[in-house]
Structure formats: structure tokens, C-alpha cells
């Protein structure tokens, strides 16, 4: 919303201090995004008449323009736009001019012929967006004068403010001026002229059918209209507000809306069918062509303004239709000023995706009782260009029962003080909010606060608390620190999660954060089931799957890096996955994914072991149960009881192919939500022996069907209490060993009370071999 400095200073006796106003606007919650100068003229650009234009055989893209600026000399300019005719008046940037974009205009030759400056487009001068050709000025424009002077440009300072949802009034210059005047403690004056009704009775009838959507609809007939240009000051204020001048009627309509915040619509009374209005909901599938020439398909939720013959002539509160538009021959208008229920407007705006200045105001909630003042102001301003204006008797003011009634709120000074942390008396509250239109009456301990009709956002005591704080000044309230009686800290789960991260970082893994949205192709490529929770309105078509596993994202990260010549990268991710569920919400949980490019399954198992050892996690490696997408003979489910807490192994070569990954990828995926619940065991002290230890190396030929884990378990059992350490240190698969491989273990034996004898060691060795033999393992 553009607040015009000169305009608000017409309404309130504010200081001519841009910095102070800008700071104060932000300080009362009307955040200033930028302060701009609009209508500033570019020095050195003067008006000139085109004498003639000429093509040159060696310069196809430009032509020669000969200009007369009244100094008696013919000036020559090369120009790339061809829209001017001899006799046209154009803005001419003379050599030495610095354009708003910083370009210095110099005398430059083309095919050896110098060009004295440049002809300007409207956009180049900051006069709008038109860059289709050179700006052709009014034929009556004098030549040789600054173009700004010729155009009657007035420099305006504009504050571009961010209007919050709870401040519908701040869409008008009046609302902003009132708020500022209160803070600056200066008088504020509403332009509230008396409406002089002088013409014979003439009315446009009003039939409000949809009373719950339209609470007030006023019409007044104004004749004696002469379509003419608007005064310069009005044109420049409209321009400063981002609106183009059309003609005096349209301009006054816009100007009144910008000032009072009340949208209105002027219909050509001659073309108004049946001479009246009917406000009703659209029929499903009903269409109408709006002012912008677009045919709109409507639903029964859209509110229409129709003429008395039931022909749609506007979408209520949003945009008028083409059929009753003001034309140059318009003599009599029917001026509509109405109040529409804001939520309905908002929903139509969203459905039709049709945002207008009027809808922006109507969807936030207008002042139902500001209408009369805005009509008077409309007439007052139109009289400036239509001296013969006649306002007719017979204004129609149709109201429905849904018209808002004034809100009165009981405000307790004690509550205000308790929430703001500073003491406020009823009198102080009154002095802060009365200047912005709130009525205050004492009612026992409380104040009975009447909310002004332009502040529909205020319905609760807390809303008044905010107004008090806003006008007192947040910064003046001071700063205190609450006394927390509880200790700060991370929960045990959060501490454990940090530990998992630390371990993985220590192991050299980098943390990735892939996007949580996948496509069906991702599920397919990763071998994941197609069942997933989906987005109804994805940002990118097809990117609608909420991930059920971290694997696809991590594989994409590996593929991306491999394609950028970074093989062998390893990543981990801690993130949520969202499997389907029949509960209120999907079965969301936190997952941990680790991928190691260029590594084989055992490396992932090592990572699992490291984590499990540090975190007190335990699980069975079940190689008989490998989910799709993982290497079927090199992966395992990590099972606790009947539940899977994760998977470990390698990515299936088909999946690698699908992602274009040429390295093996070891993978570990864990249900972190579940595992972080596990309380790590606190390691208990074991006395170290003072006696020497003895090592036994045992290498077995073991059938493929017998796992190393089984042999290890058997050895552990056989070695008994003397065993202090057991490790697999070699695996050897010889080509002629058939369906078996060699596994070599090292056992360290030690007693707490004596040095072990050879006989002790031999006994353990024999027992271990015998145990392994029972499993089908043969000593090598």
C-alpha cells in the first residue's frame, strides 16, 4: 500500500519530515518497505517537435529523427523506435542528461553521423511501464520546456507500507493519517463535505437478494457529467499510488477509494438495464465478462451485481463488467457504494484468482458507515471538473440485517497492565486509544470501549491491549526477563540423537539433507513399495510422494556427486519419513540413513556395530529377510523380536543402475525414533588381570550355510571364563573350496588368579575345535 506524503499531510498536521514519518509508521506497525520519490523529473529532458524522419541505407535498425526545440537549430537524433510522425511532440534527452537508470546520454555517432542525445519512452522517464515506443505527448505541449513542467508532474514522496491483516483501515490514506496523527499528537481532519442535493428525484432501485453477503448498498444518481481530464495534482497522486489517470470520473472514483478506503463504482445510468440493481448469488456456470475483457465462469459462492433486468454487471466487491462502463458520452451516472461480507469476497478472489484494488479492501472488511462520507467526497471532487454537476434526490440506502453493529468491549486496566508489564490507568488507556477513534466510557473497574466501525478486527479485550501497546510504543514498555524455575536442557532422546550424529561425523560421514518429496519414479527406482502418502498440491507436478525411506534422497546425492567427479562419498541423514497409516496422521518417524559409495556391505555392518556398541542397541542380522531394493545376498534386516528396526547391507545393483551409480554402495537404515528410546547401558568396571595372557589362532573351513556369528558364539561358549577377547581376523574364499570358506579367529585367554599353563590353553583349544566341528567346521 502506497502512502503519499503530501496526501496524509493534507489530512493531519504531520511534520514535513520524511525520516520521522517513516520511522513512526514502522513503530506503529505499518512497516515501511521503501520510501520512494515518484514523479521526479529527469533534468535535461525537454520537449521537442519532430520535423521529419529519414531512413539511412547503412543503418537498418534505426532511423534519423530531426527535432525542433524552438532554439532555431535543427537537431538530429538516431532513434530505434519508429512510432513518431512529423509534428509529434516528444521528450528529448539532450546530451549530458543522466537517465534514472544511470546512463549518461552523450553525442555518439552511428555510421559517422552524430546523434545529439535520445528520444525517450515513458518507461525510460519513470512514467509507467510503456516501452513500446517513444512517448508521444499532447499536441498542445509547448516545445523547449522541461517535459515534467509540460506534463504538470508533481514530485511525490511515497511510503510503501506493508498493511497487516488486522488493519483494513490502513488501506486508506485516511486510516494511516489518523494513526500517525495520534502518535504525533497533532490534529487529524476528515474531509467530510456536506452533500448538496439539488436535482429532481431520480433513483436507481436496489434489490438485495443475498442479504447475508451484502449488508448495505447505496445508489445515488449524478448528472451533468462532462468527461474531462483530471487536475494535475490528482493525476500525480494517483500515479504516486500506482494508478493511471483515465478520465475525471474514473479518477475521482479511484481517488476517493484511495483516500477514504471505501471502494465505489460509477455506472453509466443510460446503459443500466431496468434502471436499477439486484444483488444476488451467481448461478453455477453463469458467466460474465469483467472490465479487463476476460470471461469469468462463476459459482453459487460468487456474489453478483446485476441490473434490474437480472443481467450481471459486476462481480460484487471485486470488478465491474464491460457493459455499463463509463464512456466519453456518459452524462449521468449511478454511483454504487456498498458493504460486502469480507470472507465471501476473499473466497471469490481466491477462486477466481482476480485481485483488484477494490477486492483487496473489501476482503479485509470495510467500514459500513464510511459510505456517506465517501459519497460526499466523490461529489465534491467531481465538481472540480464538472461545474454543472447535479446530485439528484432519491438516494437509495438499502440495508440487510447482516449489517455490522458496533462492538463494545469491556477492558480491565488490570489486565492491560498485567499483560504489558507496565501499569496503565483507565485514563491512560483512554488517552491512547481515543485519538484513533475508540470510544471510552467508564464502567466500574472497567472501561467500556466502543470499537470504531473501520476496525472490524477488534472484537476482544486483547485487541484493545494491542492498540494500547502500539500507541504507547513497544520500545517504551521496557525489557525484563522472566524467572524460569526449571532447568534448561536437552531431553535424553535429543542428547542421544546428538551422540549418534557425533559418532557418524567421527567416522567421517558428511551430513546430507535431501528433499523429502519424491516421485513415483523414485519409489520404483529404489525398489520401494508404491504405497505412500501423497501431496494434493505439489510444487512440481509428480513430486508428490512423501518419502517412506531416506534411501532415494541419499542415492540421488551419491549420483549427483559421482556425476561431478566425486566418487566414494559417504553421507548420513537424520530425517523424518512418512509411511501410510489409518490413524489420524501418517506413521511418521525419524529415520537414520547412511550410504557409503565405493564400499561393500561389511563396512555398513561395521557402522551398525559401532553405533550399536556406543548406544546400547542390539538387533539380529536376518539375512533371510531382505527388503526389495537391497542386494539380496549381501543385506540383512536388523530385527528386534518380530520387529525390524532397520536394514544393513548393500544397494541392489538394479537400483544403482537406475540411478546411474557405477560404484557399489553400502547402506544402513535405522528407525531412529525407536532406537533412541533405548537407554544405553552404563558400562560397569571389570578388573583387568595382572597375569600374562595367551593367544590362540584357529582357522576353520566353514560351510557357507553356517554363519561366522554361529562359529563365534560356539567359540565363546567353548572358551568360557578364560576368554577375554575374540575376533575374526581373516576370511578366505578359495576357488576350489566349493561351498565353504575359511574363517580365522584369534582368541585371547587370561586368568585373574594365575599364569595359564600350556595345558590350560590346550584344553580350551580342544574344546573350541570340538564345538566348531559340531557345526560342520573343520580346522584347517
Amino acid at each position, binding site marked *: 500500500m502506497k502512502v503519499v506524503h503530501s496526501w496524509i499531510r493534507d489530512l493531519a498536521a504531520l511534520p514535513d519530515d520524511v525520516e520521522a514519518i517513516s520511522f513512526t509508521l514502522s513503530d506503529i*506497525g505499518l512497516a515501511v518497505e521503501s520510501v520512494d520519490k515518484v514523479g521526479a523529473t529527469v533534468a535535461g529532458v525537454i520537449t521537442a517537435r519532430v520535423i521529419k524522419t529519414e531512413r539511412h541505407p547503412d543503418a537498418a535498425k534505426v532511423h534519423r529523427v530531426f527535432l525542433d526545440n524552438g532554439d532555431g537549430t535543427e537537431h538530429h537524433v538516431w532513434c530505434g523506435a519508429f512510432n513518431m510522425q512529423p509534428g509529434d511532440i516528444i521528450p528529448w534527452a539532450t546530451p549530458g542528461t543522466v537517465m534514472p537508470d544511470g546512463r549518461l546520454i552523450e553525442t555518439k555517432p552511428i555510421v559517422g553521423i552524430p546523434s545529439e542525445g535520445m528520444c525517450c519512452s515513458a518507461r525510460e522517464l519513470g512514467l509507467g511501464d510503456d516501452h513500446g515506443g517513444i512517448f508521444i505527448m499532447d499536441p498542445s505541449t509547448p516545445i523547449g520546456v522541461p517535459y515534467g513542467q509540460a506534463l504538470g508532474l508533481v514530485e511525490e514522496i511515497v511510503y510503501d507500507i506493508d498493511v497487516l491483516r488486522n488493519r483494513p483501515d490502513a488501506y486508506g490514506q485516511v486510516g494511516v493519517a489518523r494513526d500517525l496523527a495520534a502518535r504525533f499528537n497533532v490534529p487529524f481532519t476528515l474531509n467530510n463535505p456536506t452533500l448538496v442535493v439539488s436535482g429532481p428525484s431520480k433513483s436507481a432501485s436496489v434489490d438485495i437478494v443475498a442479504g447475508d453477503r451484502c449488508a448495505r448498498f447505496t445508489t445515488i444518481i449524478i448528472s451533468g457529467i462532462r468527461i474531462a481530464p483530471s487536475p494535475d495534482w490528482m493525476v500525480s497522486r494517483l500515479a504516486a499510488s500506482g494508478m493511471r489517470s483515465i478520465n475525471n470520473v474514473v479518477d475521482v472514483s479511484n481517488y476517493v477509494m484511495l483516500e477514504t478506503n471505501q471502494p465505489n463504482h460509477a455506472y453509466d445510468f443510460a446503459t443500466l438495464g431496468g434502471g436499477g440493481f439486484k444483488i444476488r448469488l451467481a448461478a453455477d456456470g453463469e458467466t460474465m465478462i469483467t472490465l479487463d475483457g476476460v470471461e469469468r465462469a462463476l459459482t453459487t459462492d460468487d456474489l453478483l451485481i446485476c441490473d434490474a433486468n437480472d443481467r450481471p454487471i459486476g462481480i460484487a466487491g471485486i470488478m465491474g463488467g464491460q457493459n455499463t462502463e463509463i464512456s466519453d458520452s456518459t452524462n449521468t451516472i449511478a454511483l454504487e457504494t456498498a458493504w460486502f461480507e469480507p470472507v465471501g469476497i476473499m473466497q471469490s478472489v481466491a477462486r477466481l484468482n482476480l485481485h483488484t484494488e477494490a477486492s483487496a479492501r473489501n476482503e479485509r472488511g470495510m467500514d459500513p458507515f464510511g459510505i456517506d462520507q465517501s459519497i460526499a467526497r466523490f461529489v465534491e471532487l467531481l465538481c472540480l471538473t464538472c461545474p454543472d454537476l447535479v446530485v439528484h434526490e432519491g438516494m437509495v440506502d438499502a440495508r440487510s440485517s447482516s449489517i455490522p453493529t458496533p462492538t463494545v468491549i469491556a477492558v480491565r486496566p488490570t489486565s492491560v497492565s498485567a499483560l504489558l508489564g507496565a501499569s496503565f490507568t483507565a485514563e491512560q488507556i483512554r488517552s491512547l486509544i481515543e485519538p484513533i477513534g475508540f470510544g471510552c466510557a467508564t464502567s466500574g473497574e472497567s472501561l467500556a470501549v466502543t470499537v470504531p466501525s473501520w476496525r472490524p478486527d477488534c472484537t476482544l479485550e*486483547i485487541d484493545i491491549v494491542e492498540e494500547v501497546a502500539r500507541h504507547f510504543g513497544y520500545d517504551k514498555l521496557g525489557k525484563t526477563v522472566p524467572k524460569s*524455575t526449571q532447568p534448561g536442557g*536437552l531431553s535424553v532422546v535429543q542428547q542421544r540423537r546428538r551422540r549418534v550424529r557425533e559418532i557418524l561425523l567421527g567416522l567421517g560421514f558428511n551430513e*546430507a539433507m535431501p528433499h523429502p518429496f519424491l516421485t513415483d519414479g523414485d519409489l520404483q527406482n529404489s525398489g520401494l513399495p508404491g504405497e505412500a502418502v501423497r501431496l494434493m498440491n505439489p510444487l512440481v507436478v509428480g513430486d508428490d510422494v512423501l518419502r517412506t525411506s531416506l534411501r532415494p534422497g541419499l542415492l540421488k546425492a551419491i549420483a549427483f556427486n559421482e556425476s561431478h567427479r566425486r566418487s566414494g562419498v559417504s553421507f548420513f541423514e537424520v530425517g523424518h519419513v*512418512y509411511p501410510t497409516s489409518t490413524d489420524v*496422521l501418517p506413521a511418521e518417524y525419524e529415520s537414520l540413513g547412511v550410504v557409503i559409495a565405493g564400499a561393500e556391505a561389511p563396512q555398513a555392518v561395521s557402522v551398525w556395530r559401532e553405533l550399536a556398541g556406543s548406544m546400547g542397541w542390539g538387533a539380529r542380522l536376518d539375512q533371510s529377510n531382505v527388503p526389495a531394493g537391497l542386494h539380496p545376498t549381501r543385506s540383512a534386516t536388523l530385527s528386534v523380536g518380530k520387529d525390524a528396526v532397520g536394514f544393513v547391507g548393500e544397494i541392489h545393483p538394479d537400483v544403482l543402475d537406475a540411478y546411474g551409480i557405477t560404484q557399489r554402495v553400502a547402506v544402513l537404515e535405522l528407525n531412529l525414533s525407536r532406537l533412541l528410546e533405548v537407554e544405553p547401558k552404563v558400562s560397569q568396571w571389570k578388573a583387568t588381570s595382572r597375569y600374562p595372557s595367551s593367544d590362540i589362532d584357529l582357522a576353520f573351513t566353514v560351510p557357507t550355510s553356517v554363519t561366522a556369528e554361529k562359529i563365534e558364539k560356539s567359540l565363546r561358549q567353548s572358551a568360557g571364563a578364560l576368554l577375554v577377547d575374540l575376533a575374526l581376523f581373516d576370511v578366505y574364499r578359495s576357488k576350489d573350496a566349493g561351498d565353504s570358506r575359511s574363517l580365522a579367529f584369534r582368541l585371547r585367554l587370561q586368568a585373574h588368579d594365575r599364569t595359564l599353563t600350556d595345558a590350560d590353553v590346550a584344553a580350551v583349544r580342544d574344546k573350541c575345535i570340538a564345538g566348531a566341528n559340531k557345526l560342520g567346521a573343520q580346522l584347517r
Partner: protein
Amino acid sequence: MISEITSARTAAEQSIAAASTLDEIRILDTDLLGKKSPLALLKTGLGKLITVDEKKAAGQALNEAMLAVEKVLNARRVLLSRAEREVQLAAEALDLTEHFNAPGRGKAHIVTQAWQRLEDVFVGLGFQVAEGPEVETDWYNFEALNMPPSHPARSMHDTFYVDHGQPGSTVLRTHTSPVQIRVMQNVAPPIYMIMPGRVFRNETTDATHLAVFHQIEGLVIDRGITLTDLAGTIEAFTQAFFGPGFTSRLRPSYFPFTEPSAEFDIRTPKGDWLELGGCGMVHPNVLRAGGLDPEEWSGFAFGFGIDRMAKERHGVGDVREMYTNDIRFIEQF
């Protein structure tokens, strides 16, 4: 006998002086002081001497000779071992700048780094950390936060709707605020909590906007909590997180779930202002949705983006870079 001893001693001392390696010293140790050394052999000949005086004199001379030889030998050993160690040390010389890129510690994502730094600062200020689901019900994400179905502020949130349950009932949370409600429902006040987490907005990404990003939110609910407590807490955070030269201010703003609402800005020691986040007193309707009586309890909430903290700290030009998982990006931090 004495002359034999003297000449043996002289010969021994000469051979020690001639030794140039520790190996030679080791051999000489045996040859000169061992059982079969000339001096040892002379000792066995002591018995053949006739007079006690002769024996005594020769014995004393022998002992002196052996001690002297041993001393010379040890001195020579020390000298040679020192020399040998010198040679070894010289030979082992390494250029420590001959450095290979050995695998090192991994790098945490910069958002995680910022996240944990923020958590640590708030923990120091007496806050605990709460979490909640990323897929939320419309009720927790909007309705409980004073945004009933037709509330205009909903259009400020570009919401991703999730096809789960009744149409429109499930969303990707657009902010971390639903965790406020879950905390109020599950934790009896006083509540001093922060709620970091991933949030989602259905908007086109650019250098400063992401559809998936991270927020941290704070919630304090206790008896007698005031707007000045909010301002003071923001100030304490500002100084703890950014440094002692930084200050903060609140500007009026609007959020449906807080009132009075404010934006909070941080002022750098150089005097620049940067807009950080939104905050306000928890709206009575929100307290009620969380099962608390607004006449008994009051509180404040604040929130801001974590990604932006990471972006500003490391000068990342384009936030989208943070999510490419390009190892060349990750390794930088």
C-alpha cells in the same frame, strides 16, 4: 704379574678406544671383561702366587684394572650409542608438510550446526527442547492457532495439503507453532520450551526462499508473563547468540496466534538493523486450545528461520545451494 696386568689393561683400553660401533663394544664387553678375558685369566692365576703380599698387591691391581676397563668401556658405549642415535635421528628426518588428504571427520550440515548452536544458547537461557510431527492436522496447524477454516490469515500460508484422512484435514506443517499446542496439552506450566523443526511452504523457491526449510520457535507460559518479558528474553537471546554489542527491538505486527504481536529486529554493533522474526503474547484463544485458562496463565512465543542463520553466518549466496548435497558445498563448513 703386575706388569702383565698393566699390559693387559693397556691393551684393553686401546682396543676400546679403537671400537667404532656398539656391536664392537658388545663383543669387547665379553672379550675384555668376560670369563675368558685376559684379566679374568690373570685372576685365575692369582692362586699360583706365593706370598700373601704378592697376592694382595696383584689382586688389588687386577680389580683396579677391571674397574678401569669397565669404566672406559661404558664411557665408550655411551659415546657410541649417542652417536648412533644421532645418525638414526638424522636418517629418519621427515618433511611434515608432505601431507596427504587423509580421511577426516565428516561435516554436519550447516543447518544442523545453526540448529544446535541455537539450541545450546536457549538451553543456557533455561529452555527445554520440544518436537512434533511434520505432517499435521489442520486443527493443530491452523485452527488451534486461532485460524478457523475461513480465517483470512490462512492465505498467508501457502499450504501443502496431504492426501490423508478427510480432504483438507491433513497438511505439511507451515510453521513449528503446532508444537506449541502439543506442548500445552502435554506439559503442565510453567513452560519454557523451544521448538526447532522442519516446515513447508508451497511457494516457488529462489535464492532466499525455500519450500522446505527450518524454523525455531520459543514458547514461555507461566503466571504473570508480560510483553516486557518477551522483549527481555529476545534481548537476552540476541546478546547470547550474536554477541554483547547487539541489541533488539520489537515492532508491532500481526499474527493470528499472538496478540499483541511484534516483529523483532536485531541491531548490529555497526548500527544496521536486520529483521529476524515474529513474536508476541500467546493469544487467549490459543491458550484455550492448549487447555489453559488465559485468566490464570499468560505467555509469549517467538520464532524465526534457522536456514537464514546458517546462510548469514557463512555468507551463502543462494539458500538452494544448502540442499544440493554437493560434497563440494558440505566440505566447506
